[in-house]
């Protein structure tokens, strides 16, 4: 264990240090940075797997002279799972980055980009491993700062700077709430060690527990991108270079999921009233639905993917929220099932979202644009990227037999099992959450049919797309890794569920492996095979066999027929890309049906020919949707703070004497207070 940890630290630190030794040698810097990152994340994969398989938590710590701070590391099953997730994504992105960053040669310092990449991966891993509140906060802040620097890689663009600033402010508001959470625990335990958080000297009173719950929810929720704290995410994640976006959307937001589970189930011991779980459930449902709704309206491929992260965090929280509700009613087995579903979706989302972001990065690399309306016909020009993106799209749309389907199926099952709860309100609310999840899933399908269909199919819509070429081998390799993992996670619940059970068992207090797997592990069957069952390997086999049957039918009934290729009927004139359905057109019915949410404003200007109003010379069409949260929540807040700051300006006259008086008065006041 310590060897692996050493290898991991050494790898990332070398990747952090050595690229800076070769200024202006981008090729060497690239190789060093991403080579070391790949090595270190390889060590991370082994470390995570070993940690998952070992029954005991493994700890190591180094004391410091700073009070309350110790570099304590603890690798239990929950941490191992997240280390494994981060390292898998890290490995794939490192391989991908080797090819991808070549486009930055000469524009951006590769030393900085490579070092920051390593530092970012290292800080995320340490967030998971930290066993001391102080240490956690340091690496958490490091993670936020490094990701901020990565977001503003292309800082010459104004919108990137805006995205960076927005992220910077939001993440620090989040950190403030996290500090409050930890201070609540510190006040009870007298130490920043997580062990003291777990078993404080004086048990936390009810009010303090609730405070910790809410503060952690806001603090970590900001990072996770839950509604309504998600507003920064669709700006910041797409602004970063694509391999960084993959890490931010795929795994960085998962560190917040980790922290929430750590606090609620570990520090607070899984003892909470039902309404905590209900709040998480409602937030999960809202995030899932609103995330996908806003994603549908996006035509910037990377922003679309970023909004889907909000959606998927929502799905994960549906699992965790249901788990908390079950836990509060003492239904530990169901709680374990719901948590398992949430964690399964966590690793699934990390993999397919990273895959999709790498795919979007490949499109950006090949076409130099993120606007979907300028893509088209790319499947024939970039067959590999297209195939990988399709795998990602099918997985995120939760279609059988992919991994996304398995975890969403498990979430559905845990929501359906709500009839065991002895409360009629919750009995109705959990199935309603399932209905929301069904709507979310269907809209996600529509959204990815749009994303794939408009980008990869039909005719190219711009010269960029017409001249696109397949991306270099290393980028394809990076995507292959993730595509293979996605397939394995979909077809192999027989391996994944026992591993996840090791993570969940200490949290819920009961192991359920035997209750989730049936038929020698070939089928998932919560709680028994009579109630429900699913076997993705069998479904996959059936799909393959029946496809063969379809081919057989075609041959048996039709014999050998030569296919004729001819151009699409364009109503008498040649088909051009301008006749194709656009992404905007595709979602128009959805926009209209949900116009109450979107509040769309459409501007149509037509310039007619002088001779007749029957002939339009030029048309200009524009549509916007109302950013409700920004308009009704954030803008008033910002206005409030700026007016407050304006008023407070009066006492800051800039005179040194005045300030000295303030200090004196404060001192006197404090002394009086002390007496």
């Amino acid at each position, binding site marked *: 264990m310590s060897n692996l940890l050493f290898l991991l630290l050494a790898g990332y630190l070398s990747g952090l240090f050595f690229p800076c030794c070769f200024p202006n040698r981008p090729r060497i810097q690239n190789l060093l940075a991403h080579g070391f990152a790949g090595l270190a994340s390889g060590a991370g994969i082994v470390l995570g797997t070993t940690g998952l398989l070992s029954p005991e938590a493994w700890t190591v710590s180094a004391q410091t002279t700073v009070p309350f701070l110790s570099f304590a590391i603890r690798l239990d099953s929950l941490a191992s799972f997240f280390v494994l997730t981060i390292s898998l994504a890290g490995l794939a992105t490192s391989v991908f980055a080797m090819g991808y960053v070549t486009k930055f040669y000469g524009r951006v310092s590769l030393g900085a980009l490579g070092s920051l990449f390593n530092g970012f991966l290292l800080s995320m891993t340490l967030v998971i491993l930290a066993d001391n509140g102080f240490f956690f906060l340091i690496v958490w802040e490091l993670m936020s700062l490094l990701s901020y620097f990565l977001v503003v890689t292309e800082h010459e663009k104004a919108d990137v700077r805006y995205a960076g600033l927005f992220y910077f402010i939001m993440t620090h508001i989040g950190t403030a709430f996290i500090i409050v959470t930890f201070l609540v625990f510190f006040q009870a335990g007298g130490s920043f060690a997580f062990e003291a958080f777990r078993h404080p000297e004086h048990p936390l009173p009810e009010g303090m527990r609730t405070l910790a719950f809410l503060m952690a929810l806001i603090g970590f929720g900001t990072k996770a991108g839950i509604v309504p704290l998600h507003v920064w995410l669709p700006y910041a994640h797409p602004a970063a270079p694509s391999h960084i976006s993959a890490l931010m959307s795929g795994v960085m937001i998962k560190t917040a999921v980790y922290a929430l589970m750590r606090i609620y189930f570990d520090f607070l011991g899984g003892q909470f009233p039902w309404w905590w779980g209900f709040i998480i459930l409602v937030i999960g449902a809202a995030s899932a639905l609103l995330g996908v709704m806003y994603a549908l309206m996006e035509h910037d491929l990377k922003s679309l993917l970023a909004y889907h992260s909000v959606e998927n965090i929502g799905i994960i929280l549906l699992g965790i929220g249901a788990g908390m509700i079950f836990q509060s009613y003492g239904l530990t087995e169901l709680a374990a099932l719901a948590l398992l579903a949430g964690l399964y979706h966590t690793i699934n989302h990390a993999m397919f979202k990273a895959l999709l972001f790498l795919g979007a990065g490949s499109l950006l690399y090949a076409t130099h644009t993120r606007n979907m309306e300028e893509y088209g016909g790319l499947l024939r020009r970039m067959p590999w990227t297209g195939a990988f993106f399709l795998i990602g799209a099918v997985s995120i749309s939760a279609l*059988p037999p992919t991994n996304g389907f398995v975890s969403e199926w498990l979430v*559905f099952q845990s929501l359906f099992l709500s009839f065991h709860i002895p409360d009629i309100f919750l009995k109705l609310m959990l*199935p309603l959450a399932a*209905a929301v999840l069904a709507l979310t899933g269907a809209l996600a*399908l*529509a959204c990815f049919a749009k994303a794939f269909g408009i980008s990869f199919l039909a*005719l190219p819509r711009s010269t960029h797309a017409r001249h696109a070429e397949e991306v270099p081998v290393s980028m394809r390799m990076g995507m292959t890794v993730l595509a293979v993992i996605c397939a394995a996670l979909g077809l192999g619940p027989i391996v994944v569920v026992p591993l996840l059970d090791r993570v969940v068992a200490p949290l819920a207090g009961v192991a359920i492996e035997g209750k989730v797997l049936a038929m020698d592990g070939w089928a998932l069957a919560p709680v028994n095979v009579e109630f429900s069952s699913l076997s993705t390997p069998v479904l996959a086999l059936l799909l393959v066999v029946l496809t063969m049957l379809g081919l057989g039918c075609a041959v048996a*009934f039709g014999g050998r027929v030569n296919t004729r290729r001819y151009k699409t009927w364009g109503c008498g004139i040649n088909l051009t890309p301008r006749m*194709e*359905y656009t992404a905007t057109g595709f979602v128009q019915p959805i926009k209209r049906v949900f116009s109450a949410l979107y509040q769309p404003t459409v501007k149509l200007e037509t310039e007619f020919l002088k001779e007749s109003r029957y002939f339009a010379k030029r048309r200009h069409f524009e549509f916007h949707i109302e950013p409700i949260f920004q308009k009704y929540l954030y803008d008033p807040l910002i206005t409030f703070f700026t007016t407050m700051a304006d008023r407070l300006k009066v006492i800051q006259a800039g005179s040194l004497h005045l300030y000295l008086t303030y200090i004196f008065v404060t001192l006197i006041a404090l002394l009086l207070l002390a007496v």
Partner: protein
Amino acid sequence: MLQAIILIVTQTAILLAVSPLLVGLIRKVKARFQLRRGAPVLQPYADLAKLFRKQPVISTTTSWIFIATPYIVFASTLTAGLLVPTFTSQTPMSFAGNIIALVYLFALGTFFLILAGLDAGSAFGGMGSSREAIVASLTEPAMMLSIFAIALTAGSTNLSTVVHKTALLEGIVTDPSPHLMAFAALFIVALAETGRVPVDNPATHLELTMIHEGMVLEYSGRYLALIEWAAGLKLTVFLSLIANVFAPWGIATTVAPAAMGIGLAVYVVKIAVLAVSIGVIECMFAKLRLFRVTDLLGVAFILALLGLLFFYILRS
């Protein structure tokens, strides 16, 4: 094992054989209502055979998605069909997936059909795809809730178990109102999912109205044959689902040959009755405007929710 394989093969064969018949039956009913004689009931078989032999024309703008889609749609619909009890409640494949898997297997086919609609680059295909996306999205919540209401009454989400228990009246709540609500909701969902009037009209190629036909407009030859067959299969699967979940009587609950024989006969009668009722509905109602479809699906959702509420109120 051998018995399971025989059952799988039988069920596949029955589904494949019955589905063109249902399509023909509905067309015949509609023709008679319109005072036409109509084509023979067996006409769809001849159509399929003819289409398989025809030379397919494929657009030069398309990719491999266009050619793969008919096979994927055919396979996913048939896989879904194997999860649904038809003439026997001992569905051998029921362990492979419950009713949620069924919903998502249909979604798999829909996903690829939407892609294929976009692939040829014509505006008709895109129009069909775009409309299919919204209709499919709005049916899903109603479908999920009605399924849940049924699952609650039988204490299972496995179709085989639901049907088996209902057929033997084991552990079924005696009051039928949750069942009736769920039935109405699922029937509306079935009309929407299989592209029937009042949601879509399978008999039209008018660009103002078509949804499913718009998506598959560019298909010809064997590819069209597979798509048409799959559409018939989807209809058959939905009718089997409704028939057996809400009226499982007569279905074979054992593997005895006599019970199987009776089950098969009863099954064909049941889905034929449902097909006739769909034909009648198609004649009695006009197709709804696309943006009124939301209201219909909203009604289905509310019905399913009421079914759920009734179940809990009756229980407590």
